[in-house]
């Protein structure tokens, strides 16, 4: 600040101020990623059944959040907001590669490449999820893997509370049909 009188006022000060803002923003954003990144990646994995893709989807989600961080950081719940962005990224991805939906829907006879020596159970739940409608899957992941309330899930997905309850019941029913009664009841 002290040397600005000798320099043309304005640009130098501006760029320094801007740099400071960026530093603060990056710090705050990095703290958020440290807190939420792993959970986001795991939810992305439950949505897409592939750890590499999950990593890409998570990074893309975080990039979008970073691009709007000045607005995002003031929102009521950054966590819930990040889920909303993630699910939109997943839905977009599904729509663009609708071919891969068919692959996902196929009965897998090979063990998942990413999970070496995975117990049978692990493959089964994720595969069963992959056969659900993508929005039903999102409801289950947000509701049961992330433990959000029905109301929060509704807000994240832009659905009504009754639609979330309906999708949840329907999806659990389908999981039960695929995985057997004791999956839910034991």
């Amino acid at each position, binding site marked *: 600040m002290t040397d600005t009188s000798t320099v043309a006022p304005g640009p130098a000060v501006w760029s320094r101020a801007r740099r400071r803002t960026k530093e603060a923003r990056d710090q705050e954003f990095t703290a958020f*990623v440290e807190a939420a990144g792993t959970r986001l990646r795991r939810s992305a994995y439950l949505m897409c059944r592939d750890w590499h893709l999950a990593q890409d989807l998570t990074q893309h989600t975080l990039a979008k959040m970073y691009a709007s961080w000045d607005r995002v950081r003031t929102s009521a719940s950054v966590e819930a907001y990040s889920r909303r962005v993630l699910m939109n990224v997943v839905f977009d991805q599904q729509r663009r590669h609708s071919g891969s939906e068919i692959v996902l829907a196929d009965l897998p006879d090979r063990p998942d490449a990413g999970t070496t020596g995975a117990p049978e159970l692990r493959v089964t739940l994720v595969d069963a999820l992959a056969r659900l409608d993508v929005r039903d899957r999102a409801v289950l992941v947000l509701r049961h893997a992330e*433990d959000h309330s029905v109301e929060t899930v509704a807000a994240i997905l832009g659905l009504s509370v009754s639609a979330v309850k309906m999708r949840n019941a329907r999806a659990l029913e389908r999981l039960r049909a695929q995985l057997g009664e004791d999956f839910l009841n034991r």
Partner: protein
Amino acid sequence: MDGHLRDRFEQATAGDPGAPPGELALAAITEGGRIRRRRHRLVAAGVAAGLVLAAGGLTAANLPWGAADRTATPPVTIAAAMVPVSAPSCSQSPVEDHATDLAVFLATEATDRQRDAVAAAVRDDARVDAVVFESRAEAYQRFATLWADSPDFVAAINADDLPESFRLRLTDPEHDAALRARFAAMPGVAQILGHRCPTDAPVGGLR
């Protein structure tokens, strides 16, 4: 049972190969910085920032999360501006049960065949008293009129961004739950909003 289910989901992600969060943050900052700069250029080129928001698939950061918060005046964002507005004589917030009127919104990517199937279903259902279809063009008209004093918003949205919808009046609010369940299960249906309205309100309960 819920706790058990949570354990199962937890086990399902046990194969997480892990990734250093610092690297993840750095990669996001690099990619996000590019999005930022592109956006600034677009704004400089005179394109409304809202367009980028809408195109990016991001919905408003400031959109209230719970319906309960909606009483406060929300900061106006594209996403908020696109939320359907209740008709003045109807319940101001959507209701979960015993609605007299329903608005069935189709997904923007719904196919013609899906739309025709929903149209047939609503028209043939004896529990539906009246049906009005709102096309994208009509939705856009309504949107443009409603936001006439924010030309930037209107310019940032085009008809394709707005969903088609069927506006229904039920013969009896008792049928609400069954009808919602029926239509929500149809492919191409994105969302259903219910309102309680007097008989002289516009069919569907939306402005």
